[in-house]
């Protein structure tokens, strides 16, 4: 996954992409991020950040049964 930042620097690792997303969102008022972890037994920072990037990019789906 590549993430092009506002100064056109292409980030190539998933960790860099997530950090770049975070920096970009901070400019829009982001103050905090938190996670509800699942199975992280075999996780690396890179694999976790890859999943975060996928979640950010994913489209929303209808969840009719949540409330």
């Amino acid at each position, binding site marked *: 996954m590549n993430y092009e930042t506002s100064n056109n620097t292409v980030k190539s690792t998933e960790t860099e992409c997530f950090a770049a997303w975070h920096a970009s969102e901070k400019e829009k008022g982001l103050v905090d*991020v938190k996670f509800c972890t699942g*199975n992280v037994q075999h996780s690396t920072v890179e694999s*976790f950040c890859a*999943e975060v990037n996928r979640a950010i990019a994913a489209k929303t789906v209808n969840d009719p049964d949540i409330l």
Partner: protein
Amino acid sequence: MTPIFSDKSTSAIRFDRVCATCKDVIAQLAKNRKLEFPIRLDWLTETVSARLATATGNFPIELLAKDWGAEQFTGFLSRYHDHAKIIYSYVPGPNPKTNTCWRRYVITKELAHLVLDTTDSFTTDPVGLVEGLINDLPNIRNRADLLSEQVSPLAAIELLLPWSLRHQVYEMAKTMSHRKIAESCRVPEKIVSTVLSSEYRAFSEFANMAH
């Protein structure tokens, strides 16, 4: 607001403050809505939103269901100055990893951050937070954001099975299985078992009676 996760004098999480905050949220919800099981997430979200609204504006909270093939995490809070987004894993169709009860728990855990966290426990180094979450090591640097992650599951329990309705859970347990109680309260069975354990009962009674 008194910081919960960064009390430098004790370097300890103040569970009594966590429980007091949760009780306060539930009391606020009960002012406008009927408090009963299952706790409605739209009302809980509305209450948290109202607490964070300022004189100059509302604080909308978006709950965003997404299917990204979740494995390493199931929920993700991004909090902004004037709004918040909670992304949670939802795979349409039957899937035990993300059944309704677990999704409600995941969302509530992230809502808990919105009411518990102060600027001291906001994450300024997200990659460092990820390192802390995936490394099964003690939080020796006493990172407030990581402490918050560690205590937010407790807050989710206290919001979904609130202290003011806890006697109902204890009553149900006399005749119902943990699974039936979980279905009735729409929470994970594991949480019902936790709340009914003698250790949690003692802990929760102590923390909730402190204020």
